[in-house]
């Protein structure tokens, strides 16, 4: 694949928050609980797209439906989205107490 500009250099210095210590991937979200988005781990293209749909850090959301093995439904900024497992893997979240 062709590498655009300088994207490939970024990985060296980018420290991504690790899963664990309260941070989970969206795939592990449980129905009905409230979460906060910690980070989006996509490429810049995907990040921009997800941000445009309202998936930005600090955003609070809830999971409204989980289909086993398939996709899940989340409500972000008043709109319901269906998200595939592969995409959900890239979104890191943290549960909000209370």
């Amino acid at each position: 694949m062709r590498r655009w500009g300088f994207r490939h250099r970024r990985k060296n210095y980018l420290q991504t928050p690790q899963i664990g210590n309260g941070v989970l991937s969206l795939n592990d979200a449980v129905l009905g609980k409230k979460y906060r988005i910690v980070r989006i781990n996509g490429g810049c293209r995907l990040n921009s797209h997800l941000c445009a749909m309202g998936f930005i850090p600090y955003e609070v959301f809830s999971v409204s439906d989980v289909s086993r093995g398939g996709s899940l439904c989340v409500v972000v900024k008043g709109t319901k989205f269906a998200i595939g497992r592969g995409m959900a893997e890239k979104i890191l979240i943290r549960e909000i107490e209370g």
Partner: protein
Amino acid sequence: MRREISIALSGNPNSGKTTIFNNLTGLRQHVGNYPGVTVEKKTGVINYKEYKINVVDLPGTYSLTAYSTEQIVARNFIIDQKPDVVVDIVDSSNLERNLYLAVQLLELKVPLVLVFNMADIARKSGRKIDIELLSELFGAPIVETVGRSGMGNKEVLEAAIDVLNRKKRKKVEIKYGEEIENEIVRIKSVLRREKIPEFKFDTRWAIVKLLEQDNEVIDTIKKASGLKYQKLEEEIANSIKHITSILRNTPEVIIAEARYGFISGALLESYKEVDTVKLDVSGKVDRILTNRILGIPIFALIMWLMFQFVFTLGKYPMNWIDIGFEKLGALIANVMPEGLISSLLVDGIIGGVGGVIIFTPNIMLLFFSIAVLEDSGYMARAAFVMDRIMHKIGLHGKSFIPLIIGFGCTVPAYMGSRILENKKDRLVTMHINTFMSCGARLPVYILFAGAFFPAAAGNVIFSIYIIGVLMAIIMAKVLRATRFKGMSDPFVMELPPYRIPTLKGILIHTWERTWMYVKKAGTVILAISVLMWILFTFPLIGDNYSTDYEAQISEIEQSYQSGIITQVELDEKVAAIEGRMAGERLGYSAAGRIGHFLEPVFKLIGFDWKMTVATISGIAAKEVIVSTMGTLYSIEEADGQSDTLKTALGKNYPPLVGYNFMLFTLLYFPCLTAMVIFRREAGTKEMLFQVGYTLLLAWVVSFLVYQIGRLFI
């Protein structure tokens, strides 16, 4: 003389943009494609006061990043075509999300009008906004509309004209925070120092895009600045590194946060009352429709209803059209003397064009149903429900709908594939759709299964359908692993709130599609049907019949006149001889010669030249195979029920060849009309690929079945 101005409509998906467009332009719409891409371009013209307003409906997008073709198309239209005014349609019950696109339009510094659509729903939710203040903050007039009732149409046009005529527009600049702003200033100075030519668009905007690593903008600037780009690239990389190390996040995320920050700031100031009622996002209905257990059965039921609606209800108008064309053909045959011209008119043109027009009711009903499913919000749920299953074979949840339609007719199925946004998903779905055995193939199966397997005809036909489905699954996997490599789009899809669709919107949608079909397919098909007619007619046989049939006929007529045979016997015998003549004429024609020529290739799968000719005629339409077989076996008026034809086939071929013929008919590309539509939807290259690979596949599968089968039987 009216002054000509142009307005572009932009907005999020599900913001009611299409309804507003329909309200503004009515039926004076033109549907085409943006050059080079399969994104639909809708335009309309309004005469309002002293203006002639050209309205362009941009594709519905969440943003103007370079994520999807739609977004790039929308952005490039604004940058390159420079519409006089951009009207952004906003769902006012969900301002925070919808205004994100508006902010991006502000960044582009276009003359902007904000339309707060669905104002009635927003008011019900208990929110009150200081429109004037918000309009001030965004530097753009805000018009409230209710798309459903058509409220606010005139105001939209007034606001647009007002913006256009305003001498000084207030410029709103979005601030992205200190770090980013510093980098913007730094890059600007780099540009000046390196003497990189001015960007085609606003410099600040371009720098922001570079920091966001927008492929499109990077490419354009690379081309424009040549070798100097390397220096710029380094500087941008430094900036990104700097921002990321300080803010612990990549610039594109920081910039997005700043945009949302601008929006929430503006909303916070202009909300008079904070919302008291929480909007229920169709929760209760979804609990049933996307239920883990009920979801799929409900979807199956809706698909079944749609299938019935499209094909059972469609049968009646199809019959009328069929009869109409038959009557027209008979009329011309009566009025004109028998000969080549009348044959061209009746068999070639009326037969060919009639064969296209006859699908119109199906197309109409299909797009009517798709519009209802889409506008009501169910389509997204269906994709959600089916996604898990379809994902396993490398397709999108929505692929299921065109595939189901394919069992009725492949032509609307190809057109229905448009509901898939991703190009690879769409192409794979189209390429395997031919294996969903369409209705026109059924007469062929009935004839052959009846001829060779009279005791188990039903099971044999069923087995063909199953093989088709299996073949579709296998080919989907194969295509996904080879030509259309790469994952389908990571799946994020909005599940819009359920709404009752408006009749006007649905009718306009249906009409557009139907007209497009009739117009495009009709012209091409006309030419091709004439070509097919020539192939099957020329060279004329003249006096080159193998025996003197004329003499035989006059002999029979004499024996009738002398009372040896009855009227009924006379008709039968004459018909038999005329049938034999037609068979010989066909054998003598170019198509017959091609059949003879190709026989060695088809011999390997057990076909003789007659089956080969029938297969060629099936290119025009699969059901034609039956009548061609009839002609070749000298039986007039052949249809699937014809017992004489069945006996003739049973005598001439072993059952294995009969089964193989059905397989071949199943697997090779559906028909000419379908291919014309395929070409329009996917381009010539893909159409040729479809023709090539289905023919090859059909031959290979039949070859294996015939050669292996022969060892056992």
